[in-house]
C-alpha cells in the first residue's frame, strides 16, 4: 500500500509540476522578468540611534534605501556597504532558469501531493477524479488564496515587511486555514463548525505584516497583473494536482487494497 501511495504522489506531483512550468511561462515568468528591471541592489546599512545609542543593521533596497539615505543626518549613518548579492550563484536566464524552475515546481508538486494523499489516507473514504479536484480546490484555498488575502503575491522589487515576519504569518495562516477547512468539512454538529469559521477568520483579523511605507519601484499595473496571473496559475496547478492524485489514488490504492478503507477515525 505504501509503495502504491508513493507512486500516486510521485506521478501526480511530477505531472502537475510540468504543467505548471508550461502555464507559468505564459504570464508569470514574463512579469517577473519585467519587474526585475526595477529591482534595485540590496544594501546593508549600519546605523546607530543617537537617543538610545543602539547600533543595528538594515538590509534595504529601492524606495526604502533612497529614503534612508535622505534622513541620514537624523539617524547618524556610519557606513553604507554593498551586500554580497553579486557573489551568490543564480541560474542564467533562459533554458537554465527554466530548468531550475521546472525542478522546483516538480518538488513543490510532490510536496503538496504528499499532503493531499495523506488527507485521502487519513479520511479513508473513496476518492476519484472529481472529489480529488475538490481537494485540490481546498489546497488552493489553504496554500494560495488565504495567504494571498493578507500578503498579495509579490513581484521582485516590491516593498514589503521583513521576510521572517511575513513567513511566520504565512505559515500560521496556512495551518489555521487547513485545520479550519478540515474541521468544517469533517464534522456534523454546529459548534465545531463555528470554531472552524473562527480559525479561518483569525489570521485576517490579526492581520498580515505590512511595510511602514507602501511605495514601490514596480509599476502598480505590473503588480496588479502579477497578482491575478500567479493566483490563476496556482489555481490551475492545484486543480491538476487534485484531479490527478484523486484519479491515481482510486486506480492504484483503493481498487487494489479494499480492506484498508473500512477503518477510519473520521467515519464513526
Amino acid at each position, binding site marked *: *500500500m505504501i509503495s502504491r*501511495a508513493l507512486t500516486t504522489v510521485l506521478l501526480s506531483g511530477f505531472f502537475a509540476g510540468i504543467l505548471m512550468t508550461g502555464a507559468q511561462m505564459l504570464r508569470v515568468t514574463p512579469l517577473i522578468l519585467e519587474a526585475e528591471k526595477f529591482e534595485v541592489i540590496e544594501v546593508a546599512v549600519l546605523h546607530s540611534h543617537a537617543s538610545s545609542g543602539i547600533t543595528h543593521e538594515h538590509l534595504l533596497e529601492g524606495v526604502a534605501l533612497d529614503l534612508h539615505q535622505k534622513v541620514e543626518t537624523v539617524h547618524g549613518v556610519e557606513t553604507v556597504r554593498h551586500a554580497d548579492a553579486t557573489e551568490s550563484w543564480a541560474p542564467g536566464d533562459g533554458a537554465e532558469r527554466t530548468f531550475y524552475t521546472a525542478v522546483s515546481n516538480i518538488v*513543490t508538486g510532490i510536496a503538496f501531493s*504528499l499532503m493531499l494523499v*495523506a488527507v485521502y489516507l487519513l479520511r479513508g473514504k473513496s476518492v476519484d477524479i472529481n472529489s480529488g479536484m475538490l481537494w485540490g480546490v481546498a489546497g488552493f484555498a489553504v496554500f494560495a488564496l488565504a495567504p494571498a488575502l493578507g*500578503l498579495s503575491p*509579490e513581484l*521582485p522589487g516590491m516593498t514589503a515587511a521583513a521576510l521572517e515576519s511575513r513567513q511566520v504569518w504565512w505559515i500560521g495562516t496556512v495551518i489555521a486555514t487547513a*485545520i479550519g477547512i478540515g474541521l468544517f468539512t469533517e464534522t456534523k454538529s454546529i459548534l465545531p463548525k463555528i470554531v472552524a469559521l473562527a480559525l479561518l477568520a483569525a489570521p485576517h483579523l490579526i492581520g498580515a505584516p505590512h511595510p511602514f511605507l507602501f511605495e514601490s519601484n514596480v509599476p502598480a499595473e505590473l503588480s496588479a497583473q502579477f497578482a491575478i496571473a*500567479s493566483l490563476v496559475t496556482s489555481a490551475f496547478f492545484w486543480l491538476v494536482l487534485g484531479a490527478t492524485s484523486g484519479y491515481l489514488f482510486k486506480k492504484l490504492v483503493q481498487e487494489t487494497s479494499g480492506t484498508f478503507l473500512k477503518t477510519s477515525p473520521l467515519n464513526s
Partner: protein
Amino acid sequence: MTTKTISAGAIASLETSDGGVFSQRMTTTVMMLLAGVVLLFAVGFAQGSGSFMHNAAHDTRHAVTFPCH
C-alpha cells in the same frame, strides 16, 4: 492537519479490528505529512548557502505566492 493526525493516532490505538492495516495506514499518513512539510520548507523557505536554494526556486516561490524577498 497536525491536530487531526494526533487525535487519529490516539483513536488508532483503541481499534482492534484490522489493527495492522489501520496502523500501517496511519503511519503512512504521518510520514507523508512530515515529508511534505520538509520538502515544502526546502522549496519555499530555505535560503541555502549563498542563497543557492532561494535563487534556484525563485520563480516557483513567486508563482505559488510564497513570501520570497
